């Protein structure tokens, strides 16, 4: 984290980082950089990374599908669509409006997928959730593309956001969403035992006296809040929600009481690292961090798929 405070287009020595906290000097450019932008960026990376990874674990348990990721809820596509829609209809001036807009879109898409998954006879069908998510993603992406073709001025900002980035935003603007994520993370950690039981299958869970509908609703809300605020804060950052849960399962435990805190930590670390690298690879410019995670994640994902293939062959 210290490294993250120091690194950037302008290298700030450790001593300055420390004094920026202890004795802030309003005239010192380094101090201002640290406390105004670098700090919020670092905290954002930690919160977003942890949120995405935890949302991934919950999604995989909810759908009982190891390849599920929070993106499957149509959350990224929904957020993107809302941003494009609102920035063409009205001119979004404040960043606050932007964030709210993205979160709203994410929540709406997520809730729609949830409702479709619960429609019809019988209980929620995980497969139907996956299908509804894919359909909703396609639908919202199509809307977004249609809007972008009609009005092109929004393209630049949207493109940057689509790739996922932790651009330096002031803490004053992002704290409500970050607080929401932290609360959702804490709640998720408390649900570990319930997730363990849910993970054993629907009939087993009912047999063990779990209130299945309630737990699924709770997890659905947690996923939407976690992934929705992550996508609003940092755009669509892929692979963290998919990869980190598998890494931690292999390395630490499959019991969610250990898995959940484990992935929160690993997700935060991974995104922080990816962000660090993305800041320095093409100085003085920056690569969007979403590109970095994809670069790191894709090879790992292929490895994972191959390993599983061998085991089941």
């Amino acid at each position, binding site marked *: 984290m210290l490294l993250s405070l120091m690194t950037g287009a302008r290298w700030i020595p450790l001593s300055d980082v420390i004094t920026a906290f202890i004795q802030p000097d309003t005239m010192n450019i380094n101090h201002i950089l640290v406390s105004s932008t670098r700090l919020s960026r670092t905290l954002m990376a930690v919160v977003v990374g942890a949120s995405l990874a935890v949302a991934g674990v919950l999604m995989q348990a909810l759908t009982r599908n190891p390849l599920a990721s929070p993106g499957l809820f149509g959350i990224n596509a929904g957020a993107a669509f809302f941003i494009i829609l609102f920035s063409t209809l009205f001119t979004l001036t404040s960043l606050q409006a932007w964030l709210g807009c993205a979160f709203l879109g994410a929540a709406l898409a997520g809730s729609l997928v949830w409702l479709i998954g619960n429609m019809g006879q019988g209980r929620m069908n995980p497969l139907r959730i996956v299908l509804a998510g894919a359909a909703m993603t396609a639908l919202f992406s199509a809307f977004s593309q249609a809007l972008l073709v009609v009005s092109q001025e929004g393209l630049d900002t949207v493109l940057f956001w689509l790739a996922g980035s932790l651009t330096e935003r002031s803490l004053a603007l992002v704290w409500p969403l970050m607080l929401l994520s932290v609360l959702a993370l804490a709640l998720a950690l408390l649900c570990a035992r319930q997730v363990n039981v849910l993970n054993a299958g629907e009939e087993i869970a009912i047999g063990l006296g779990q209130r299945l509908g309630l737990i699924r609703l709770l997890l659905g809300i947690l996923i939407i809040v976690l992934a929705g605020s992550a996508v609003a804060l940092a755009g669509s950052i892929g692979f963290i929600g998919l990869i980190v849960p598998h890494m931690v399962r292999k390395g630490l435990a*499959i019991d969610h009481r250990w898995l959940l805190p484990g992935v929160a930590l690993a997700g935060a670390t991974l995104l922080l690292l990816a962000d660090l690298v993305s800041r320095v690879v093409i100085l003085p410019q920056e690569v969007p961090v979403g590109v970095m995670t994809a670069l790191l994640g894709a090879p790992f994902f292929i490895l994972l798929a191959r390993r599983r293939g061998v085991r089941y062959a």
Partner: protein
Amino acid sequence: MNAITSQDLTLSYQDSVIIDQLDVSVPKGKVTVLIGGNGSGKSTLLKSFARLLKPQQGIVLLNGADIQRKATATVARELAILPQTPVAPEGISVRQLVALGRYPYQSWLQQWSDEDEAMVNRALACTGTLELADRPVDALSGGQRQRAWIAMTLAQGTETVVLDEPTTFLDLAHQMEVLELLRELNQKEQKTIIMVLHDLNLACRYADQILVVHEQTVYAQGVPKDILTEDLVKTVFDLNCRIIPDPFFDTPLCIPFGRERTE
């Protein structure tokens, strides 16, 4: 005293009625086996006994109270269900799986007690899975895996245990192993065992009571000796057979004829 009683019970999927206005009772402390043809509704009836399926009409009473109205955690302390061919989460160890059985006894505050630990160890010991405890479930053989699942339902410490075809996919030796275990639990701990079996001869050997599910209802119910007749097998399974007393166990032994032979 009855463990489970159904009153005016109608079960259906979508629009097709599976069980129609059924009144039936399953006695406490006995081994009851449900038999019937494929698609007769044995499993469906069993599911409704364990609140996995909501009745369209009528009620299921567990120990005298409506199972749908009881708190589901309370039900889980009175009745355990092992569904047909459950799939364990990838990589879970036998001990972790069995420990899930203690879920109904835990709460946000009360996490893991000494009693939980003792019950898990007992369940592992009496199913002979103690030495497998640290192995992942997906690395076990079919028989071992089934014993691990039975251990999970035993860890629940319930008076009634409901099992849906616990012997499917097992070879004869492993089938016997599972059935012997269940009878032992019934005799030593007076557990009520309710299960679906396909093998008529094993059903007759291990059941105190048989429920024949046929034509959307319980077609016959009683001690195997009294109810398993050639006529019944002909009606329910559309199969010609001869029933003789088992020379060793004296329970009915069904010798099925093929199409070629009717006598």
